[in-house]
């Protein structure tokens, strides 16, 4: 675990503390950034920029929830700026509206009493891939990166209630993929 005074140490210019944070979160942040930019080199550049900015402005940074939430938030903000800049069509909000359509047309459930683990995982994977971007991101942040609800809310720029909604909706969709007819 990172020491609890890590933010204070970084603010004071402790490069060793900063390196520790970098080494701890670089990879998960790159994976997070990849969800937005869909290019691993661009994702790394983006995370590099975020850490560069953190170091440059360390003296004045305001940490609300945690260093981790701050980093995820910065990555997201920067990613959305990049996205806006590049005017990518598959927009975050458009995703959300498709969600309602998806809910009206759930994927057909295939009866199979002998699903083995591999098949279940393949189903989960398919179901996860077809989740709305926001729900997939929330699930990932919650269980893969183990952020708290408050941290996810900050990182995604939504309310804690919104996070809970996304998580339960995402879980529901994944559960359905596991149901056997």
């Amino acid at each position, binding site marked *: *675990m*990172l020491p609890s005074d890590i933010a204070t140490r970084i603010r004071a210019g*402790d*490069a*060793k503390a*900063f*390196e520790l944070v*970098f*080494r*701890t979160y*670089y*990879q*998960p942040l*790159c*994976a997070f950034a*990849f969800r937005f930019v869909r290019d*691993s080199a661009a*994702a*790394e550049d983006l*995370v*590099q920029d975020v*850490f*560069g900015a953190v*170091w*440059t402005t360390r003296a004045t940074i305001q940490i609300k929830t945690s260093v981790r939430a701050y980093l995820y938030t910065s990555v997201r903000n920067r990613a959305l700026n990049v996205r806006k800049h590049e005017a990518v069509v598959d927009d975050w909000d458009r995703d959300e509206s498709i969600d309602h359509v998806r809910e009206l047309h759930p994927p057909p459930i295939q009866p199979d009493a002998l699903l083995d683990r591999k098949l*279940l*995982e393949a189903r*989960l*994977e398919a179901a*996860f891939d077809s989740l709305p971007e926001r729900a997939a991101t929330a*699930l*990932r942040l*919650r*269980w*893969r*990166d*183990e952020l708290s609800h408050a941290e996810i809310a900050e990182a995604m720029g939504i309310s804690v209630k919104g996070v*809970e909604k996304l*998580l*339960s909706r995402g*879980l529901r969709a*994944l*559960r359905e993929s*596991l*149901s056997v007819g």
Partner: protein
Amino acid sequence: MPEQNDPRDEHIIDWLRTNREDTDHPVDVDAAWSRLAARNHIDTQVAPLRRRAIPRTWQIAAALVAVATGATLWSRVTKTPSSSQVMREVFALNGQRTTLTLDGGIRVSLNGGSRLSYAVSGAGSRDVYLDGEAYFEVAHDPGRTFRVHAKRGVVRDIGTRFSVRAYASQANVEVAVVEGAVALSADSASAAIELAAGDLGVLPDAGAPTVTHPASLDRYIGFATGSLVLEGMTLRDVASTLERWYGVGVTVDDAVLATRPVVARFRGETITQALDAITLAVGARYELRGEAYVIRARTK
């Protein structure tokens, strides 16, 4: 928790925790850190060595040197006010391995979580001070004795390739000789034992050194050629070895599991690939909890 009220959720959450989507795009954290540090002129401060043999007052000029291997080498030059002897310290952080060549053509591979210090110049004998693990290739020079000081041990080369392991966390100093011969003795005692090729010398915290001749020395020398060799180790030892090798936290959350023997060999695998193989072999599972990987007993 409203999010865990369904029996299927355990399976789903399990899958979310372990799904491999981020290993599709592996990142080189060492290289990434070097890039960031170079761009932003970040100098990582290090705690000074605590060792009697070297004076305590330092004037520090930190230097970041990128070596030809692509690995990052943290080194610092220190000058003692009392004498004009300039000491250099070289670090390999957890997750890094680095090689360097000392004056006189002595080649050193430094394993993760290790520190080597030595005088930059100086005639006569060569003395280096090791915390951690290093592999040495020495062309013997009868005019200049080469000595490795590690904990209370002194290893004197008699023309050879050998490896010394002396992490602060372990009780012994272990010396594995690949070629040639070395003499191993305790700091204070004068009696030295001679180790030949294939020998493993062990110097305990107290008492005289002993010598054995194991079937293989791979676990002591593999790191020098980029292999992580886990042999004759419990899962607990493996966890701390993985921490040094990959530079991430690894713990075992089960006392029985921690004593399970592990035999494995890795070369170029990612931490998750290594953990996949190890946990499969011992019938465990792992998860990323906060900043560390935690190995747990399988619950089904």
